[in-house]
């Protein structure tokens, strides 16, 4: 992989440049310094790089042991999928962070920053196994525990804006087609109205009763 880095520097594309960049060997996420999105993104990069290069090396080693490229890839296909997910998750995380950074409305920027912090921390907690398994001391159990506390704190911060955050999706009742999600919140009276439209309610006594159950119950 190191050799591949040297060879591929110039062909690095927009979406894979991070593969060929030097990165810190330890994450600087900790509760004693401000949680900047860039250190969270760096963790996404680290996972993606490690998964991609680890599976790359495994394939190269299998090929050295005589497997064809296809056989080697098949034997590594689960890890190849994990590597692809990590690469894609990084793109989503990076795009979210870049988008929030460009918001000009201060109040919107503040609430979206909370949303982004929640997203990044929650995704990393979900990838914790991958982070800790990499056995390269990049990440520690304390840092995972800290990120989990960041998730709970972010949820608390978001709570007052929960309904305005979904209202901002501007989803029209007609498009949503949901009695539970109605914009006016008048759910229960409308649930009752909705149920009465059921074809089974066209008549008080249905054919099934007249034809089968009634006679059975009378015999």
């Amino acid at each position, binding site marked *: 992989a190191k050799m591949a880095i040297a060879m591929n520097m110039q062909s*690095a*594309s927009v*979406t*894979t440049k991070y*593969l060929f960049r030097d990165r810190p060997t330890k994450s600087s996420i900790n509760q004693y310094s401000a949680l900047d999105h860039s250190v969270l993104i760096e963790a996404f990069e680290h996972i993606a790089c490690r998964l*991609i290069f680890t*599976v790359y090396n495994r*394939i190269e080693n299998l090929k050295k042991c005589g497997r064809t490229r296809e056989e080697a*890839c098949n034997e590594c*296909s689960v890890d*190849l999928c994990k*590597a*692809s*997910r990590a*690469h*894609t*998750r990084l*793109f*989503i995380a990076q*795009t*979210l962070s870049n*988008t929030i950074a460009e918001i000009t409305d201060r*109040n*919107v920027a503040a*609430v*979206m920053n909370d*949303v*982004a912090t*929640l997203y990044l921390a929650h995704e990393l907690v979900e990838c914790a196994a991958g982070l800790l398994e990499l056995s390269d001391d990049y990440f520690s159990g304390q840092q995972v525990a800290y990120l989990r506390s960041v*998730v*709970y704190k972010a*949820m608390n911060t*978001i*709570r*007052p*804006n*929960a*309904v*305005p*955050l*979904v209202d*901002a*999706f*501007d*989803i*029209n009742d*007609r*498009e*949503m*087609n949901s009695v*539970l*999600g109605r*914009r006016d*919140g*008048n*759910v229960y009276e409308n*649930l009752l109205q909705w149920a009465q*439209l*059921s*074809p089974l309610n066209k008549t008080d006594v249905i054919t099934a009763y007249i034809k089968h159950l009634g006679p059975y119950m009378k015999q």
Partner: protein
Amino acid sequence: NPDLSQERRKATFRVDSLSELLYGVEHLKSRRMIAKLVDTTPELHDTFPTTFMSREEKVENAARKIVALMKYLPSINSFKFEDIFYYQSLVMHVDGHPLSLHGVMFVPLLMQQTDEEQRQKWLPRAIKGEIIGTYAQTELGHGTNVRQLETTATYDADNEQFIVNSPTVTSTKWWPGNLGKVSNYAIVVAQLYVKGNCYGPHQFIVQLRDENTHLPLPGITIGDIGPKFGINTNDNGFLRLNNVRIPRKQMLMRYSKVTQNGQYIRPIHEKLGYGGMVFVRSVMVSQQALFLAIACTVGIRYSCVRRQGEITPGSGEVKVLEYQTQQYRLFPQLARAYACWFAGKRIMTLYAELLDGLNENKTDLLPQLHALSSGLKAVVTHQVALGIEQCRMACGGHGYSNASALPELYGTAVGGCTYEGDNIVLLLQTARFLMKM
């Protein structure tokens, strides 16, 4: 509902400012205008909640509405993709309709994969709705694995025709949307054979039904594949071709060509035919983000209406959203909806750059975008399906009722994990690109 009004008074930001970030100022204005048009046009409404309809009633109701939708289309006074898409989603909801594939696949492919002469002939008819088309790629035996499709198109130079055939039962086209009963044309994907050589899968315009009687043409066996997990308003169909002859000019020849005397001309980039798939996968990412946004909207609004239990005894029942477990069920999904939303916007921007580049024969972005759109489609569809299910369960028992719209939404969204490429296969495609890098 006073509980929801109270929630809205807590906002620390101007909601429309965030809506403008999501949609853009202009499109947000159009949305409001379009919503008002639809609200005041009864022809565009369901006569009855569709959830109570049979499949046949759903398809007929959708056909009636799509015709009304086209009739009032000029009233929205816009040809922007996002305006038309919104207008369509307001009227047709998420369960499919007779022109689904016509709009998302057939017309875009006629725009992107035809040469000038073909575009002149077919595109105006498709846009005016004189013909309804679909895209028939997937077969009973193969879907994602496009290279192994069995349908053949053999060039007959003497008659300047292709003979399109379904040689085996597993080559039967199966699943394509609106193939069963509605479309009278299809872009059929078949292995191209010229002078005994196979040049891999290529795209061919095949007429399926008579333009007047709508009866299947000779050599065509066609029909609906039956009820599915979701999108049941769509007549997903099957198609068998028995040595159907089509003119040479009905092979889509923007990039690869077959000359009159049977010479094959290769495309500048082997993946150009994938342009249509990259476009659809990019659209899918945004659509899936919208599905998760809808589920979050239902889950979070209802969690402020539903009161259950007391946190502090004697203080009265609280909104279920006060419980940390309820927040943990919903808020990460809300954050994901926003993250996927912005990723969808970004990938469409990159796609537009790809198209500009292709016009100047620059194709370096294509492999990256093919890999990225494959990875995004796989990751986003899977996370959205899981997220909708979390939002549905957050609604307690009522989430299990079709009144919530969440079972139908889930049925529609989760189909995205297999159509347009099985997620695992797409992840492996992304991995192949990463290993090459």
